[in-house]
């Protein structure tokens, strides 16, 4: 079966996976902007912080993505009874993607503002601008092109890394890639890889165009920039809310398995047993990669425990 044939037969699934992928990238980049830009601005005001903060972001960037996903799963962190970190699924994937996207955004915000000509800053201060007026009327507009370049790099990194997020049940086009790897099916691998590459190229071109339109002295209206920035902020805030509402469900339990037949059967048995013996609802996630942390845990004991504290996995 050719790639075109496969895609045309599975349009519905392709669209779903693409939307999942865009959701992961959009939410992660949005949160990274909301954290990274203010943090970058803070660093220009408190340069002593720049070394430790940029150093941390640098280390996050160098951590292998699969290891970072695996490292985040056993964590179990709550904020006001809402789980904010840990477990399998989109939430953990988004946390990891945000960590990856942070560095280019913080770094470009910091260097973009720092590279504003000191004479221009002096002129603004000499004309009686307050620090805030200088930031919003001079420094940020002049640094905007560099900041968007950072967002562009972050977005492209996220599109690529999000394919790996399928290994921890975050969905996205990585599902096709992992399925293809297990089934040794090149068409399936390409069905995930080609659309992901196209998304990366499209995002790069679109943000590149945006970057050029805000270059110095272009005839873009300042109000248009404000609308875009405000829109982005609202969108990101909405995404954060969606993220916690979707990810914060309680009274449910997820049963995950690798995507080989035996594991799926064992997973289904476990899921049905839990449903029969407890009042917990079970979400079945039978399409995962093989990286769940391996802690010995007997199924009998898992079933007897009504209040299960964290993610566990059962190896046989």
């Amino acid at each position, binding site marked *: 079966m050719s790639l075109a044939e496969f895609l045309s037969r599975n349009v519905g699934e392709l669209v779903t996976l693409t939307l999942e992928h865009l959701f992961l990238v959009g939410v992660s980049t949005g949160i990274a902007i909301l954290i990274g830009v203010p943090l970058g601005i803070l660093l220009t005001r408190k340069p002593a912080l720049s070394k430790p903060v940029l150093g941390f972001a640098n280390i996050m960037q160098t951590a292998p993505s699969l290891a970072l996903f695996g490292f985040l799963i056993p964590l179990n962190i709550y904020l006001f009874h809402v789980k904010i970190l840990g477990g399998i699924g989109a939430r953990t994937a988004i946390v990891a993607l945000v960590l990856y996207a942070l560095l280019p955004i913080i770094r470009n915000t910091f260097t973009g503002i720092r590279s504003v000509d000191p*004479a*221009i800053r002096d*002129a603004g201060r*000499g*004309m*009686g601008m307050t620090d805030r007026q200088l930031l919003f009327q001079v420094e940020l507009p002049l640094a905007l092109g560099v900041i968007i370049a950072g967002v562009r790099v972050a977005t492209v990194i996220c599109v690529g890394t999000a394919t790996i997020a399928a290994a921890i049940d975050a969905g996205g086009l990585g599902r096709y890639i992992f399925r293809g790897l297990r089934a040794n099916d090149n068409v399936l691998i390409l069905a995930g890889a080609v659309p992901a590459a196209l998304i990366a190229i499209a995002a790069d071109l679109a943000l590149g165009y945006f970057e050029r339109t805000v270059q*110095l*002295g272009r005839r873009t209206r300042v109000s248009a920039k404000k609308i875009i920035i405000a829109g982005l902020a609202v969108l990101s805030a909405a995404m954060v809310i969606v993220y916690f509402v979707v990810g914060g469900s309680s009274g449910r339990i997820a049963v995950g398995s690798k995507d080989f037949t035996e594991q799926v059967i064992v997973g289904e048995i476990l899921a049905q047993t839990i449903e029969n013996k407890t009042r917990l609802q079970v979400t079945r996630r039978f399409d995962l990669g093989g990286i769940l942390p391996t802690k010995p845990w007997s199924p009998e004991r898992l079933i007897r425990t009504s209040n299960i504290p964290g993610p566990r996995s059962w190896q046989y």
Partner: protein
Amino acid sequence: MSNGDTAIEFHDVSFTLPDGKTLLANLNLQVQQGETLVLLGRSGSGKTTTMKLINRLIDPTAGEVRVEQKPTVNWDPIRLRRRIGYVIQEIGLFPHLTVEENIGVVPRLEGWAPDRIRDRARRLLSLVGLEADRFAARFPRELSGGQRQRIGVARALAADPPIILLDEPFGALDPITRREIQREFKSLQRELNKTMIFVTHDIAEAFVLGTRIALLKDGQLVLLDVPAGLLRSTHPEARAFAESLYDAQSIGSSA
């Protein structure tokens, strides 16, 4: 305030960097309302430091600077700076704003109505000899050096401040444009009757524009006199500057 009042005073003002380097030592100086005082000196003689002490971009490490009889350290820096126009070399225009927006920066900070800002910007454009219709919507990079400099002057005048600081405003211009804009500036001076402090290292410029000249060397005031007094002075630094003026003339006449 009428002419003859003191607009700016320096009382035993020193400015020393944290590393102990003294940029300005024991400066005593009074600038009268309506006069143009030229600060003349070589690079690093303390001219720009003196300027920045007036609009509180820096505070003196000793002594006191008074603007309109009030010590600068008692002024709110933002209020003080909005009463003082500031022109620096051409890079000081905001590259992301049009000519009209650049001129309107301080009026906008002061909360003027948009219509009033527009009118003011167009009036100032014609005052500095540029057609409002042709130039208002341009960006700084679309202008020549001389045009940018005129915009810089117009911007400093925008909110009608009583004091204007000009830090080598014509330094980056070619000699011909420079003489041209100096002549225009001279007539503007007469028209506006503002207190101006003008920094330059060009003695010809100092002669054309200055009511008085303050000659600085290594952070010390060595001479404060009317232009003709500088030519009569026997101080070596004054002689050096006076000779550079004669040299230029003799080279010009022999060519």
